[in-house]
């Protein structure tokens, strides 16, 4: 799995973003290679979500370059949906389509974007529903499922597009505590299969287990990038120390 020189899949070069006068991202430089798992953490409002939402241009950056698998993405580009099909994204609030069954949620992308037949898309969807352990819910509607189940459906929906990289934007923050483990298990399985993942989360257990690197952000800047053991046992910056003590303190 580990080549001598793994391919860089997601690259940030000097990326900046403002909301009016407020600097949301400042001089972001980060390269995520194929197969790598990166956990992004930091206090709320630190720009972690904004950063990963820039990758598939749900948010537009203003300065700098973002490359996905060697192709630059920018707010002006015409075929942004082509890039988005290569990038799976899982949201805090799932964003499943409530007017469609679980199965239709999963098959819509492959049918409309990849020209799959209904039968092919169905087979693909059932395959991924099995992988997230909820194949028996295929004909239900999203609101009939628990939060944890909905989030696993959302993961399966992204996987149906066979993405090169998966982005997770606080996937467990909106879940009841007893639902979190099921979602994290699915994410760990995914990581073990070699998926490239960028995960914004405060689940430090998950970070220790899965992450190759932890990125710590504060006030729109990357403060620290380190291996999880090093980061959790001996954070370099004052702000990371403060953040970790607050996170683990209670």
């Amino acid at each position, binding site marked *: 799995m580990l080549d001598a020189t793994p391919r860089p899949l997601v690259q940030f070069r000097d990326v900046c973003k403002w909301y009016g006068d407020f600097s949301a991202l400042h001089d972001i430089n980060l390269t995520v290679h194929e197969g790598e798992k990166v956990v992004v953490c930091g206090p709320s409002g630190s720009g972690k979500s904004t950063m990963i939402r820039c990758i598939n241009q749900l948010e537009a950056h203003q300065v700098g370059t973002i490359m996905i698998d060697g192709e630059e993405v920018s707010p002006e580009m015409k075929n942004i949906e082509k890039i988005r*099909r290569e990038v799976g*994204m899982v*949201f805090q609030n799932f*964003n499943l*389509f409530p*007017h469609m069954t679980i199965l239709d949620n999963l098959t819509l992308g492959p049918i409309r*974007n990849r020209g799959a037949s209904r039968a092919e898309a169905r087979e693909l969807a059932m395959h991924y529903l099995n992988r997230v352990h909820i194949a028996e819910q295929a004909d239900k*509607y999203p609101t009939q499922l628990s939060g944890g189940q909905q989030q696993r459906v959302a993961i399966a929906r992204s996987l149906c597009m066979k993405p090169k990289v998966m982005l997770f934007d606080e996937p467990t923050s909106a879940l009841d505590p007893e639902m979190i483990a099921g979602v994290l298990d699915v994410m760990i399985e995914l990581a073990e299969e070699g998926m490239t993942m960028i995960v914004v989360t405060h689940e430090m257990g998950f970070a220790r287990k899965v992450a190759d690197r932890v990125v710590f952000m504060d006030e729109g800047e990357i403060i620290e990038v380190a291996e999880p053991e090093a980061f959790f046992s001996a954070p370099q910056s004052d702000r990371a120390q403060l953040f970790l003590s607050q996170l683990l303190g209670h």
Partner: protein
Amino acid sequence: MPGRVGVPTPRELRQREQAGMDVRTIWRRFWQIVQAVLVYVVIGYLIWRGAAAMEYNWQWYRVEPFFYRVIDGEVIWGPLVRGLIQTLKLAVIAGVIAVLIGFVTAFARLSQSISGRIIATCYLEAIRNTPLLVQLFLFYFVLAPIFGIDRFWSGILCLAFFEGSFAAEIIRGGIQGVDRGQYEGADAIGLSVVDKYRYIVIPQSLPLILPPLTGLLISLIKHSAIVSVIAVSELTTAGLNLIADTFMAFEVWFLVAGMYLAVTITLSIGVSLFERSLNKSKR
């Protein structure tokens, strides 16, 4: 205080609710309905007395031929029925065009295109801030001769553009009422803009759009009466002509109003049944 005489405890209230209404409640409801009926009876009586004082000669026995006549065993529809059919034709065609205009304008307003937004905004402001009657005259006396449009289509287009401006705002509101997360979900799986609206946004905005759009179609039927001023032969024009022939103003206007009422009430009942079945099929 439990057990006090006359004051029902919460438990008793609950029991009463389960047992259905008691006799006193039924009487009170009945009396309220009687009151409502009385109000209308009094108003009706005053109109009748007023008409009698004017020495108005009610001739209800003459109205049947306004609807139909049977000549040699063949039914011939009278002016009111023919007028009603024209009104319905006018309203249906204008309604369809109005909804189309509404969608186009709503999307133009929501689009990134500056020219689209300018065109849509100017259209909306011009139509919504001038009287319909003036628009109709402008259309019929100025634009219609230029483009060679007859009076029937002048009426239809004028109504369609007028109601279309309101439809546009209803549709825009419905589209904006769809949660932002749904757009992001659609974007995240890489749907094209057209697919995003077709499969995700529009289906979810329909429950928000349908009820006010029904109201709009009902007001379209009512507003269609205004095209009588350019002598389009619809229900109101038929009424005017009948009065000119027979001088039965009271009878004819009551009949015309009743016919509009029948159509609009049928429409709103039909739509509310349709909405209920929509909600049911959802789960």
